[in-house]
């Protein structure tokens, strides 16, 4: 509302104009303050919702008949055909399949198309993906049962949307990490004793940590 001054009007009309002006300015200020407060609340609500509850990469169906060995792997492991291929990282192929108890089974395998490692979730479990479990790690390990120390042979697995990097912290405190691409991560690692698995969001903040020690 533009400022208005009644120059040359009578005294009472001038007072009413100034009064209307004051109310107008006050009204605009109130509207602006309210809008700002609403925006702040909405932003806060968004931040309180789950951040790592989705996996956008759903892959494509693997065509052709499944080999009997993979059929048996899926069947005995709690999954059912068909396999869906999500992508390949170096010499590793990533898959999903429907879980017989519900949910999504996830698998890894070499380039020959067979399954090397399979995980099928329990019925009704709220594991991956979630804020509490933004990473499903399926890394190969060498585990010493005497000392319960772990060497991660290759860092491999699935990550929720919003996870940008996954890494392993060594006993000397150094971090060995790799980028997450299309919800998948994989890299070979040098030999060292691992102390924790960590995950970082797109801003570089650590959002998940799981120790390896026993």
């Amino acid at each position, binding site marked *: 509302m533009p400022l208005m001054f009644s120059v040359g009007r009578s005294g009472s009309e001038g007072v009413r104009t100034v009064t209307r002006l004051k109310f107008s300015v006050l009204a605009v200020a109130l509207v602006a303050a309210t809008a700002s407060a609403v925006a702040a609340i909405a932003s806060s609500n968004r931040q309180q919702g789950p951040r790592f509850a989705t996996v956008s990469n759903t892959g494509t169906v693997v065509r052709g008949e499944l080999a009997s060995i993979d059929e048996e792997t899926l069947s005995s492991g709690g999954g059912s055909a068909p396999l869906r291929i999500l992508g390949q990282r170096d010499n590793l192929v990533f898959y999903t399949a429907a879980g017989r108890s519900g949910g999504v089974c996830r698998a890894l395998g070499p380039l020959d198309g067979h399954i*090397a490692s399979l995980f099928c979730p329990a019925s009704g479990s709220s594991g991956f993906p979630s804020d509490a479990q933004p990473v499903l790690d399926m890394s190969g390990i060498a585990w010493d049962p005497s000392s319960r120390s772990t060497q991660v042979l290759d860092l491999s697995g699935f990550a929720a949307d919003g996870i940008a990097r996954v890494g392993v912290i060594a006993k000397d405190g150094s971090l060995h990490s790799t980028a997450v691409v299309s919800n998948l991560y994989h890299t070979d690692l040098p030999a060292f004793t691992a102390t924790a698995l960590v995950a970082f969001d797109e801003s570089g903040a650590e959002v998940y940590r799981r120790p390896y020690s026993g």
Partner: protein
Amino acid sequence: MKRGQRWKLFLLALLVGGIVSVSAYATTTIYWGYNNLTQSNPPLGTCSGNGPGVACSGFNNWDRSQIQIAGGTGAIVSFGFQNCAGCVLYGASGKPLGTYTLIRNEYNSVHGGVINPYNRTMCGYGGDGSASYVQCRAIWF
């Protein structure tokens, strides 16, 4: 009773007891659980050459190592294959509830032949929680 008949009766007993199951392709042996896997359970001496908190099958040409995590307080479980008593376990670790399966031949394709054809399967307490309620299985395909 003839020797062959004794073996058939023994296998029948294992099948009835649920310790062994046979599908069209594979034979599954439950070697531990359902039980709480902790730092001290199973006790020392359960798996030769290893300390407490570790369970294992006998040595055989096992093709798969499988573990079902059915509950507990979120402890990590390390599971896989061991080439000799007291040797390192090659496998993976699990925490979320569900069933994990490793296939020896394909695992070797990825990791360079680290697991021998003649091996034993193993599951062990891996920390980060006091217990994991599990069943550990060895599978011969």
